[in-house]
Protein backbone atom coordinates (compact mmCIF):
# COMPACT_ATOMS: atom_id res chain seq x y z
CA UNK A 1 0.00 0.00 0.00
CA UNK A 2 2.66 2.46 1.09
CA UNK A 3 4.66 1.50 -1.99
CA UNK A 4 1.70 2.38 -4.21
CA UNK A 5 1.34 5.70 -2.42
CA UNK A 6 4.94 6.70 -2.94
CA UNK A 7 4.76 6.23 -6.72
CA UNK A 8 3.51 9.24 -8.71
CA UNK A 9 -0.29 9.05 -8.77
CA UNK A 10 -2.07 8.75 -12.12
CA UNK A 11 -4.22 11.61 -13.43
CA UNK A 12 -7.55 9.87 -12.94
CA UNK A 13 -6.87 9.26 -9.24
CA UNK A 14 -5.74 12.85 -8.67
CA UNK A 15 -8.59 14.27 -10.75
CA UNK A 16 -11.21 12.22 -8.92
CA UNK A 17 -9.92 13.26 -5.48
CA UNK A 18 -9.78 16.94 -6.48
CA UNK A 19 -13.29 16.65 -7.93
CA UNK A 20 -14.52 15.19 -4.63
CA UNK A 21 -13.15 18.19 -2.74
CA UNK A 22 -15.98 20.21 -4.31
CA UNK A 23 -18.85 18.33 -2.59
CA UNK A 24 -16.78 17.77 0.57
CA UNK A 25 -16.42 21.51 1.18
CA UNK A 26 -20.07 22.13 0.29
CA UNK A 27 -21.29 19.44 2.67
CA UNK A 28 -18.89 20.41 5.47
CA UNK A 29 -20.17 23.96 5.56
CA UNK A 30 -21.54 25.32 2.27
CA UNK A 31 -18.06 26.44 1.23
CA UNK A 32 -17.23 26.96 -2.42
CA UNK A 33 -13.92 25.53 -3.54
CA UNK A 34 -11.46 28.27 -4.34
CA UNK A 35 -7.97 29.34 -3.45
CA UNK A 36 -6.96 32.66 -4.95
CA UNK A 37 -9.31 34.68 -2.72
CA UNK A 38 -6.87 33.84 0.07
CA UNK A 39 -4.45 36.34 -1.43
CA UNK A 40 -7.17 38.93 -1.01
CA UNK A 41 -7.88 37.84 2.56
CA UNK A 42 -4.15 38.11 3.32
CA UNK A 43 -4.12 41.65 1.90
CA UNK A 44 -7.26 42.51 3.86
CA UNK A 45 -5.69 41.16 7.03
CA UNK A 46 -2.26 42.75 6.61
CA UNK A 47 -2.48 45.80 4.34
CA UNK A 48 -6.10 47.00 3.99
CA UNK A 49 -4.83 50.61 3.55
CA UNK A 50 -8.33 52.09 3.32
CA UNK A 51 -8.92 50.43 -0.05
CA UNK A 52 -12.63 49.48 -0.26
CA UNK A 53 -11.75 46.18 -1.93
CA UNK A 54 -9.89 45.12 1.21
CA UNK A 55 -12.26 46.51 3.81
CA UNK A 56 -14.43 43.57 4.67
CA UNK A 57 -14.52 41.12 7.49
CA UNK A 58 -11.83 38.70 6.32
CA UNK A 59 -12.21 36.69 9.52
CA UNK A 60 -15.50 35.40 8.14
CA UNK A 61 -13.51 33.74 5.38
CA UNK A 62 -10.92 32.27 7.71
CA UNK A 63 -11.95 28.73 6.73
CA UNK A 64 -10.20 29.43 3.45
CA UNK A 65 -6.95 30.33 5.21
CA UNK A 66 -7.18 27.08 7.19
CA UNK A 67 -7.67 25.30 3.87
CA UNK A 68 -4.43 26.65 2.36
CA UNK A 69 -2.67 26.06 5.67
CA UNK A 70 -3.69 22.43 5.19
CA UNK A 71 -2.28 22.45 1.64
CA UNK A 72 1.06 23.64 3.00
CA UNK A 73 1.07 20.87 5.63
CA UNK A 74 0.03 18.31 2.98
CA UNK A 75 3.04 19.43 0.95
CA UNK A 76 5.32 18.82 3.92
CA UNK A 77 3.79 15.41 4.74
CA UNK A 78 3.96 14.02 1.24
CA UNK A 79 7.51 15.25 0.71
CA UNK A 80 8.69 13.84 4.04
CA UNK A 81 6.84 10.54 4.12
CA UNK A 82 5.46 9.68 0.70
CA UNK A 83 8.12 10.83 -1.71
CA UNK A 84 9.34 8.60 -4.47
CA UNK A 85 13.09 8.03 -4.78
CA UNK A 86 12.87 7.98 -8.58
CA UNK A 87 13.58 11.14 -10.58
CA UNK A 88 10.64 12.99 -12.11
CA UNK A 89 10.16 11.86 -15.69
CA UNK A 90 9.82 14.71 -18.15
CA UNK A 91 9.12 14.72 -21.87
CA UNK A 92 12.38 14.38 -23.87
CA UNK A 93 11.49 17.34 -26.14
CA UNK A 94 10.96 19.57 -23.12
CA UNK A 95 14.28 18.41 -21.65
CA UNK A 96 15.99 19.22 -24.94
CA UNK A 97 14.41 22.69 -25.13
CA UNK A 98 15.33 23.51 -21.54
CA UNK A 99 18.90 22.28 -21.91
CA UNK A 100 19.43 24.97 -24.56
CA UNK A 101 18.72 27.52 -21.85
CA UNK A 102 21.07 25.90 -19.37
CA UNK A 103 18.33 24.21 -17.36
CA UNK A 104 19.68 20.73 -16.79
CA UNK A 105 18.54 19.82 -13.31
CA UNK A 106 15.19 18.04 -13.58
CA UNK A 107 15.34 16.42 -10.16
CA UNK A 108 12.70 18.36 -8.24
CA UNK A 109 9.18 19.49 -8.96
CA UNK A 110 10.35 23.10 -8.87
CA UNK A 111 13.49 23.68 -10.97
CA UNK A 112 16.17 25.00 -8.62
CA UNK A 113 17.95 26.62 -11.55
CA UNK A 114 14.99 29.00 -11.94
CA UNK A 115 13.37 29.32 -8.52
CA UNK A 116 15.83 29.83 -5.68
CA UNK A 117 17.07 32.68 -3.54
CA UNK A 118 20.26 32.86 -5.65
CA UNK A 119 18.24 33.22 -8.84
CA UNK A 120 16.49 36.22 -7.35
CA UNK A 121 19.64 38.20 -8.05
CA UNK A 122 19.59 37.40 -11.77
CA UNK A 123 17.37 39.21 -14.26
CA UNK A 124 15.78 35.95 -15.37
CA UNK A 125 15.06 34.82 -11.82
CA UNK A 126 13.68 38.23 -10.86
CA UNK A 127 11.30 38.31 -13.83
CA UNK A 128 10.14 34.75 -13.25
CA UNK A 129 9.69 34.84 -9.48
CA UNK A 130 8.61 38.40 -8.83
CA UNK A 131 7.04 39.14 -12.23
CA UNK A 132 5.36 35.75 -12.54
CA UNK A 133 3.97 35.90 -9.02
CA UNK A 134 2.64 39.40 -9.60
CA UNK A 135 0.78 38.31 -12.75
CA UNK A 136 -0.74 35.37 -10.88
CA UNK A 137 -2.00 37.55 -8.02
CA UNK A 138 -3.20 40.39 -10.23
CA UNK A 139 -4.76 38.18 -12.89
CA UNK A 140 -6.63 35.80 -10.60
CA UNK A 141 -8.29 38.60 -8.69
CA UNK A 142 -9.10 40.51 -11.88
CA UNK A 143 -10.66 37.32 -13.26
CA UNK A 144 -12.42 36.65 -9.95
CA UNK A 145 -10.86 33.24 -9.44
CA UNK A 146 -8.17 30.79 -10.43
CA UNK A 147 -8.01 27.23 -11.66
CA UNK A 148 -9.89 25.99 -8.60
CA UNK A 149 -12.57 28.68 -8.35
CA UNK A 150 -13.27 28.99 -12.07
CA UNK A 151 -11.97 25.92 -13.89
CA UNK A 152 -13.10 23.37 -11.31
CA UNK A 153 -15.80 24.90 -9.06
CA UNK A 154 -17.25 27.21 -11.72
CA UNK A 155 -17.34 24.61 -14.48
CA UNK A 156 -18.77 22.01 -12.07
CA UNK A 157 -21.64 24.44 -11.46
CA UNK A 158 -21.94 25.01 -15.26
CA UNK A 159 -21.21 28.73 -15.02
CA UNK A 160 -20.40 30.04 -18.49
CA UNK A 161 -18.37 33.06 -17.25
CA UNK A 162 -16.06 30.48 -15.65
CA UNK A 163 -15.66 28.81 -19.03
CA UNK A 164 -14.66 32.18 -20.50
CA UNK A 165 -12.15 32.62 -17.69
CA UNK A 166 -10.77 29.08 -18.10
CA UNK A 167 -10.30 29.54 -21.86
CA UNK A 168 -8.53 32.84 -21.17
CA UNK A 169 -6.20 31.14 -18.65
CA UNK A 170 -5.28 28.57 -21.29
CA UNK A 171 -4.70 31.15 -24.04
CA UNK A 172 -2.47 33.17 -21.71
CA UNK A 173 -0.53 30.03 -20.81
CA UNK A 174 -0.05 28.93 -24.42
CA UNK A 175 1.16 32.41 -25.41
CA UNK A 176 3.63 32.55 -22.54
CA UNK A 177 5.13 29.07 -22.82
CA UNK A 178 5.44 29.02 -26.59
CA UNK A 179 6.07 32.64 -27.58
CA UNK A 180 7.34 34.71 -24.66
CA UNK A 181 9.02 32.33 -22.20
CA UNK A 182 11.84 31.32 -24.61
CA UNK A 183 12.99 34.98 -24.58
CA UNK A 184 12.85 35.15 -20.78
CA UNK A 185 14.71 31.84 -20.40
CA UNK A 186 17.39 33.08 -22.78
CA UNK A 187 18.25 36.03 -20.48
Amino acid sequence: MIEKLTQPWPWYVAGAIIGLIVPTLLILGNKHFGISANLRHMCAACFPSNIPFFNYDWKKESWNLFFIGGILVGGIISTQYLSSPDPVIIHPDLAKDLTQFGITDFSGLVPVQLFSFDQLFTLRGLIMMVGGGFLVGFGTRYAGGCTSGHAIMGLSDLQWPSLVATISFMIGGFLMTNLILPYILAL
Partner: protein
Amino acid sequence: MKTKQEETDFEVRSLDTMCVNESELVHPWWYNFKYAAVGVIFGIVFIKAEIISWFRIQEMFKLQSFHMYGVIGTAVVVGAISVFLIKKLKIKTVHGEEITFTNKKFNKGQIYGGLIFGLGWAITGACPGPLFAQLGSGSLAVIVVIASAMAGTWVYGKFREQLPH
Protein backbone atom coordinates in the same frame (compact mmCIF):
# COMPACT_ATOMS: atom_id res chain seq x y z
CA MET B 1 -24.74 55.99 2.68
CA LYS B 2 -23.87 53.05 4.84
CA THR B 3 -26.43 50.85 3.10
CA LYS B 4 -25.00 51.80 -0.26
CA GLN B 5 -21.54 50.89 0.91
CA GLU B 6 -22.79 47.50 2.05
CA GLU B 7 -24.55 46.88 -1.25
CA THR B 8 -21.43 47.74 -3.18
CA ASP B 9 -19.51 45.45 -0.94
CA PHE B 10 -21.90 42.62 -1.69
CA GLU B 11 -21.40 43.25 -5.39
CA VAL B 12 -17.67 43.03 -4.95
CA ARG B 13 -18.07 39.93 -2.89
CA SER B 14 -20.44 38.16 -5.25
CA LEU B 15 -18.10 38.77 -8.18
CA ASP B 16 -15.56 36.66 -6.43
CA THR B 17 -15.28 32.96 -6.25
CA MET B 18 -16.45 32.93 -2.68
CA CYS B 19 -17.13 35.54 -0.03
CA VAL B 20 -20.83 34.82 -0.39
CA ASN B 21 -22.76 32.06 1.35
CA GLU B 22 -22.54 33.48 4.82
CA SER B 23 -23.62 31.10 7.50
CA GLU B 24 -25.98 32.15 10.26
CA LEU B 25 -24.45 29.59 12.54
CA VAL B 26 -21.58 30.55 14.77
CA HIS B 27 -19.02 27.86 15.33
CA PRO B 28 -15.98 27.81 17.57
CA TRP B 29 -12.88 28.80 15.59
CA TRP B 30 -11.35 25.35 15.79
CA TYR B 31 -14.18 24.00 13.63
CA ASN B 32 -12.11 25.40 10.80
CA PHE B 33 -9.65 22.56 11.25
CA LYS B 34 -11.99 20.36 9.22
CA TYR B 35 -11.16 22.57 6.22
CA ALA B 36 -7.48 22.28 7.07
CA ALA B 37 -7.87 18.49 6.95
CA VAL B 38 -9.34 18.71 3.44
CA GLY B 39 -6.44 21.01 2.54
CA VAL B 40 -3.93 18.41 3.74
CA ILE B 41 -5.41 15.83 1.36
CA PHE B 42 -5.37 18.37 -1.46
CA GLY B 43 -1.73 19.22 -0.73
CA ILE B 44 -0.74 15.54 -0.81
CA VAL B 45 -2.51 15.07 -4.18
CA PHE B 46 -0.77 18.18 -5.54
CA ILE B 47 2.63 16.69 -4.80
CA LYS B 48 1.94 13.03 -5.56
CA ALA B 49 0.30 13.73 -8.91
CA GLU B 50 3.07 16.26 -9.70
CA ILE B 51 0.48 18.97 -10.33
CA ILE B 52 2.81 21.47 -8.68
CA SER B 53 5.62 20.56 -11.07
CA TRP B 54 6.81 23.43 -13.23
CA PHE B 55 7.72 20.83 -15.86
CA ARG B 56 4.18 19.38 -15.98
CA ILE B 57 2.75 22.83 -16.61
CA GLN B 58 5.23 23.46 -19.46
CA GLU B 59 4.32 20.07 -20.96
CA MET B 60 0.65 20.99 -20.75
CA PHE B 61 1.14 24.24 -22.65
CA LYS B 62 3.39 22.55 -25.19
CA LEU B 63 0.82 19.76 -25.66
CA GLN B 64 3.50 17.24 -24.78
CA SER B 65 1.52 15.51 -22.06
CA PHE B 66 -2.08 14.62 -21.36
CA HIS B 67 -1.51 14.51 -17.60
CA MET B 68 -2.81 17.96 -16.55
CA TYR B 69 -5.73 17.83 -18.98
CA GLY B 70 -6.65 14.46 -17.49
CA VAL B 71 -6.45 15.80 -13.93
CA ILE B 72 -8.52 18.94 -14.57
CA GLY B 73 -10.98 17.11 -16.86
CA THR B 74 -11.63 14.33 -14.35
CA ALA B 75 -11.98 16.86 -11.52
CA VAL B 76 -14.59 18.82 -13.49
CA VAL B 77 -16.60 15.71 -14.37
CA VAL B 78 -16.57 14.44 -10.77
CA GLY B 79 -17.31 17.94 -9.46
CA ALA B 80 -20.17 18.47 -11.90
CA ILE B 81 -21.82 15.15 -11.05
CA SER B 82 -21.48 16.01 -7.33
CA VAL B 83 -23.00 19.47 -7.73
CA PHE B 84 -25.82 18.00 -9.82
CA LEU B 85 -26.58 15.42 -7.12
CA ILE B 86 -26.41 17.99 -4.32
CA LYS B 87 -28.94 20.18 -6.16
CA LYS B 88 -31.16 17.29 -7.23
CA LEU B 89 -31.30 15.58 -3.84
CA LYS B 90 -31.25 18.91 -1.93
CA ILE B 91 -28.42 17.63 0.24
CA LYS B 92 -27.75 19.76 3.30
CA THR B 93 -24.52 20.51 5.12
CA VAL B 94 -23.45 18.46 8.14
CA HIS B 95 -24.93 21.28 10.24
CA GLY B 96 -28.29 20.98 8.49
CA GLU B 97 -27.93 24.18 6.50
CA GLU B 98 -29.00 24.53 2.91
CA ILE B 99 -26.23 24.39 0.29
CA THR B 100 -26.46 27.45 -1.93
CA PHE B 101 -25.02 28.42 -5.29
CA THR B 102 -24.54 31.89 -6.70
CA ASN B 103 -24.51 32.47 -10.43
CA LYS B 104 -21.38 34.16 -11.65
CA LYS B 105 -21.89 37.34 -13.62
CA PHE B 106 -19.88 37.87 -16.74
CA ASN B 107 -17.52 40.81 -16.84
CA LYS B 108 -14.54 41.61 -19.06
CA GLY B 109 -12.24 40.99 -16.12
CA GLN B 110 -12.68 37.29 -16.71
CA ILE B 111 -11.03 37.75 -20.11
CA TYR B 112 -8.35 40.35 -19.27
CA GLY B 113 -7.62 38.93 -15.83
CA GLY B 114 -7.76 35.40 -17.18
CA LEU B 115 -5.17 36.16 -19.85
CA ILE B 116 -2.90 37.85 -17.30
CA PHE B 117 -3.19 34.94 -14.89
CA GLY B 118 -2.49 32.51 -17.76
CA LEU B 119 0.76 34.34 -18.52
CA GLY B 120 1.79 34.13 -14.87
CA TRP B 121 0.71 30.50 -14.56
CA ALA B 122 3.04 29.46 -17.38
CA ILE B 123 5.98 31.43 -15.91
CA THR B 124 5.68 30.24 -12.32
CA GLY B 125 4.32 26.82 -13.22
CA ALA B 126 1.82 27.22 -10.41
CA CYS B 127 -1.61 28.57 -9.69
CA PRO B 128 -2.25 29.94 -6.21
CA GLY B 129 -2.95 26.53 -4.58
CA PRO B 130 0.20 24.79 -5.80
CA LEU B 131 2.30 27.77 -4.64
CA PHE B 132 1.53 26.79 -1.05
CA ALA B 133 2.20 23.11 -1.72
CA GLN B 134 5.53 24.04 -3.38
CA LEU B 135 6.47 25.97 -0.27
CA GLY B 136 5.53 22.95 1.86
CA SER B 137 7.60 20.67 -0.35
CA GLY B 138 10.69 22.61 0.69
CA SER B 139 11.11 25.14 -2.13
CA LEU B 140 11.43 28.00 0.32
CA ALA B 141 12.16 30.58 -2.36
CA VAL B 142 8.54 30.25 -3.47
CA ILE B 143 7.74 32.55 -0.54
CA VAL B 144 8.96 35.34 -2.86
CA VAL B 145 6.44 34.28 -5.54
CA ILE B 146 3.63 34.21 -2.95
CA ALA B 147 4.57 37.64 -1.61
CA SER B 148 4.61 38.96 -5.15
CA ALA B 149 1.22 37.42 -5.86
CA MET B 150 -0.11 39.20 -2.76
CA ALA B 151 1.34 42.42 -4.12
CA GLY B 152 -0.40 41.77 -7.45
CA THR B 153 -3.72 41.27 -5.70
CA TRP B 154 -3.16 44.42 -3.68
CA VAL B 155 -2.38 46.49 -6.78
CA TYR B 156 -5.52 45.11 -8.44
CA GLY B 157 -7.57 46.15 -5.40
CA LYS B 158 -6.00 49.59 -5.43
CA PHE B 159 -6.72 50.29 -9.11
CA ARG B 160 -9.88 48.22 -9.41
CA GLU B 161 -12.09 51.23 -10.16
CA GLN B 162 -9.93 52.33 -13.08
CA LEU B 163 -9.76 48.93 -14.76
CA PRO B 164 -12.26 47.88 -17.42
CA HIS B 165 -14.72 45.28 -16.17
